[in-house]
């Protein structure tokens, strides 16, 4: 296959931005034009995302093939000529990846899995570049963002109050989210991360649910930003350590990486390139004892909690989950969808990228206790969801519970669990967007979200009822739907991890406790089943009271399309996990390699 030479990823980021800016200059009353522009832009980025998704495997194979060829020509590894994604072999990388005084293995794997790269120097003096690319971890997220963007525009079709501003901010939000998933430069990652937060604030505060919106929007913004700025300081400190390393002990590795084409030849030692920092991490730059004058402390051990938790705030990890249900409930439907569906994954994704991938030794020390927090998420979140009377709060807390599973998957630090976490990110994203879509459609017509006063809605809105049931079954992990293939590996990974992970706090040492946690966590699934069934029976079944809800009618074809659009991947992924799992594996191998666990 020929290389596609147009900058796909940049288009994905800039189409929404341009569309958003254009909208602001349209006349105030041209609402249909604004909507048209919005759906056009959203559809365009979705199609481009799909294109990237579908071409990912071929691209990686191509790169792998090239590598195999190079090796063959160099007289090594002739047996590796039949080289493809399924047996994307770490041994091959091993063959190229060892240099004197250090190792390139993980970084090489990471670099090999990254395609559609674009690189434009932005602030070369400080080693900052506009550098985008996708790897196995980000690619499902990119597709998810495109889906939710389209669905979000469609469900917001009937917003009449300042449509122009709403759509423009929504587009900016989409661009910011894309930017984070695509950034291969730490600075760019922060840039887009913060870029996404502000439109979120305005969207919730201006178009949200009147009773809660100002409080919830502010709470959400401050929580997320405090987390991210603390992480920012840590990351800057990390860069100086890496730069110091490359100027002294790591000079050989740095040159070798340039020679192996992992880093560009003009990379300065102080740079913001994710790959370069990963290389420093791989070679132990952050593990030098004696950080901050304390013999027992290393950079990684000290900063991991700040950086990981700084981002995990957005993933809703206990005890920093508090902003999330309020934020979801207060937000207009489209924003709830993108927020719970995509933005929370942004936190998890960034925590994995910046925390686990760059500070693996910190992860090995700290994740064994962070797993307790995620357990609280899973069980406590589900309990609280069960207790809610407000339809939207149920979904809000269910997100807290499900995102806990994602973080729990990270904490397993093995392929099974982390792949499960990756699948869960996608599955939960589509599922929760579907849920919020359903809630929004019910609320728009019934004007109440009080569960006991609703009832029998499946009779007037059969599509919504059906979609909610599909989402609900996914949520409780029914086999055949994506929830099962996401949650099952997480639990399996926990069992596996139980044998290897020990928690050490001072003289206290705890081992084999992951297995106990799985048992407790599975309780969360039971409660999930309970609240899903409760909501389904109370809202959708029973008698429909026409006098109470005189305006309730069936949904429009546009809304049906939204439900279909978000529901299909749940089923598809549940039936054919192989459309996504191998990619995640390619994305996770380097992370696992740097964690030292291998595959």
């Amino acid at each position, binding site marked *: 296959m020929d290389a596609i030479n147009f900058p796909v990823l940049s288009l994905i980021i800039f189409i929404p931005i341009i569309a958003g800016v254009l909208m602001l200059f349209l006349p105030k009353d041209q609402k249909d034009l604004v909507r048209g522009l919005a759906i056009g832009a959203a559809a365009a980025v979705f199609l481009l995302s799909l294109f990237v998704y579908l071409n990912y495997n071929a691209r990686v194979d191509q790169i792998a093939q090239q590598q195999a060829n190079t090796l063959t020509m160099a007289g090594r590894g002739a047996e590796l000529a039949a080289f493809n994604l399924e047996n994307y072999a770490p041994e091959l990388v091993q063959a190229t990846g060892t240099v004197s005084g250090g190792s390139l293995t993980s970084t090489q794997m990471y670099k090999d899995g990254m395609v559609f790269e674009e690189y434009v120097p*932005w602030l070369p003096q400080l080693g900052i570049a506009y550098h985008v690319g996708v790897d196995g971890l980000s690619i499902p997220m990119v597709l998810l963002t495109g889906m939710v963007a389209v669905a979000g525009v469609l469900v917001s079709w009937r917003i009449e109050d*300042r449509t122009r501003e709403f759509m423009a901010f929504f587009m900016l939000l989409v661009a910011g989210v894309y930017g984070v998933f695509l950034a291969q430069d730490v600075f760019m990652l922060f840039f887009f991360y913060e870029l996404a*937060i502000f439109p979120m604030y305005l969207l919730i505060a201006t178009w949200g649910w009147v009773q809660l919106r100002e409080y919830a929007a502010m709470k959400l913004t401050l929580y997320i930003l*405090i987390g991210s700025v603390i992480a920012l300081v840590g990351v800057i400190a990390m860069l100086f350590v890496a730069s110091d390393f490359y100027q002294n002990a790591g000079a050989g590795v740095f040159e070798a990486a340039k020679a192996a084409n992992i880093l560009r030849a003009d990379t300065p030692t102080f740079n913001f390139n994710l790959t370069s920092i990963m290389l420093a991490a791989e070679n132990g730059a952050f593990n030098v004892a004696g950080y901050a004058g304390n013999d027992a402390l290393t950079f990684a051990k000290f900063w991991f909690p700040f950086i990981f938790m700084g981002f995990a705030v957005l993933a809703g990890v206990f005890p920093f989950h508090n902003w999330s249900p309020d934020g979801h409930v207060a937000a207009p439907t489209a924003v709830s969808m993108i927020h719970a569906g995509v933005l929370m994954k942004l936190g998890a994704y960034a925590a994995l990228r910046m925390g686990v991938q760059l500070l693996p030794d910190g992860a090995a020390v700290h994740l064994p206790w962070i797993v307790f927090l995620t357990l609280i998420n899973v069980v406590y979140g589900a309990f609280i969801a069960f207790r809610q009377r407000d339809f939207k709060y149920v979904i809000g807390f269910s997100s807290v519970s499900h995102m806990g599973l994602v973080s729990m998957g990270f904490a397993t630090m093995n392929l099974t669990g982390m792949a499960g976490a990756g699948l869960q990110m996608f599955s939960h994203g589509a599922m929760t967007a579907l849920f919020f879509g359903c809630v929004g459609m019910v609320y728009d017509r019934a004007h109440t979200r009080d569960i006991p006063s609703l009832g029998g809605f499946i009779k007037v809105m059969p599509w919504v009822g059906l979609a909610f049931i599909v989402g609900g079954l996914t949520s409780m992990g029914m086999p055949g739907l994506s929830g099962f293939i996401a949650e099952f590996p997480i639990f399996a990974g926990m069992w596996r991890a139980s044998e290897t992970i020990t928690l050490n706090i001072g003289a206290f040492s705890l081992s084999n406790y992951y297995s106990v946690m799985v048992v407790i966590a599975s309780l969360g699934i039971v409660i999930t089943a309970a609240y899903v069934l409760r909501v389904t029976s109370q809202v959708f079944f029973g008698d429909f009271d026409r006098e109470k809800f005189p305006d309730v009618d069936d949904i429009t074809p546009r809304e049906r399309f939204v439900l279909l659009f978000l529901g299909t991947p749940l089923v598809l992924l549940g039936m054919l996990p192989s459309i996504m799992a191998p990619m995640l594996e390619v994305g996770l191998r380097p992370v696992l390699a740097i964690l030292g666990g291998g595959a």
Partner: protein
Amino acid sequence: MDFNVWQSLPVVAPEIGLTIMAIVVLALDLSLPESKRRNLALVTGVGLLATALLYLLFWFPTATVPDASSGFAFGVQEGLYWGGMVRHDSLAQIFKVIVLIAGGLTALMSIDVKGIGRKGEFYLILIVSTLGASLMAGASDLIMVFLALETTTIPLYILAAFKREDGRSSESGMKYFLFGSFASGLLLYGLSLLYGFTGQTSFTGISAYLGSAAFNFNAVPVLGSLTLIIVGFGFKISAAPFHFWTPDVYEGAPTPVTAFLSVASKAASFALMVRFLLGVFPQTLVINGQEIQGFWVNLASVLAIISMTLGNLVALGQKNIKRLLAYSSIAQAGYTLIGVAALQAHSDTSIAAIAFYMFMYTFTNLLAFAVIILFSEATGSEKITDLAGLSRRNPMLALAMTIALLSLGGVPPAAGFIGKFFLFQSAVEANLIGLAMIGVLNSIVALYYYLVVIKIMYVDRSEDEDKPIPVSRPYVWVLAVTVLAVILLGTVLVSPIFDWAVRGAAGLFA
């Protein structure tokens, strides 16, 4: 020090331009009929901006003597001129451009302000103040420091009290005068002590003498005079705890004056402060075994922490938008002082960070004040709650204000994000991680009150929603230029401006 007037003249090209401008404005003031007096603002504004542009194009600093063999040579060699009074380098260039732009945009946004827009003397005094600020950027001699400082500040006293019939304006002018002259007194005392110790007035001369064997016995008096001088600068940049004049003066002064005061005077003072501290008390200076740099670095850190925390916390409770921006400006001085503290790493990036921050802060603050001028001229109110419904009354104005506030709060893509990023990065580089942490947490507190203002503009309803706010042509241009500058400085223009700022830094570590 040799003194060649002919060679020295190009160095003060902007100041010569400003003097000519002052005379032109004076003449126009006498000759223009009432109907055409709006042109005063246009002439001043465009004139100042043109001066900045010409200065950039023709009198930029060069490393060597420009080659004049092919006729006229562009550029002037870096170095000391006017007998060591002023230094010509990229740092001076950046800050001169900043104050010229600030003066020009201020003039343009005064055009329709009642009571000052059509008064020639307003523009005249504004130009003189700009001239002083421009001299401050290059001053490298104690005499010049004081002269430039007073040339900047005394016109500002007058400008602050310019609306004579308005009690608040007079109060503001008086307060500014009392506090300002007290600060000048302290500063002058510190400077005179330094002269007394060394018998020198030039920065390099003082530094050399302090470091020599002749003065190697006692650091305490030197630290005393340094403290006095920093306190003096602290007043000028409105750093806490020397900020007490700021809110009252900002609130009472006519809004264009507040805008000018908040950027030009502050930027020039920072330029002077950096040049003075690095020139007189460099890293290498050791008196009696004591490193002087550590002292002022710690002092700057303390001032930074107090200013950021106090400014941001007090800003939370403000009801008047100008007072809010006054406390925000105290906090911004605190952030910038992080850069001053980070000078201990002896790295170009910290100076570049300060220069970049001031550059983007100028546009940002002018943008915010331009919106406030338009709003208060149309409604007569400066209360934050009265901004309610602005996004319905004039969506573009609301958007412009939003961009300004986001830039102040440090949210991308506005320039404030990258400005703060540079400052925090330089702090981390100087191993001041604690200071950087306090800085980032403060920026979150600040974001809260900026977001509240944005929320009021977008969410809250008001009874006047159907009354649009008119924006006349010069304001459209000011808004367009500043909005574009804020966005571009946060995105594509970062690299060239940062380069420029780094070049400016290089001269100081010679």
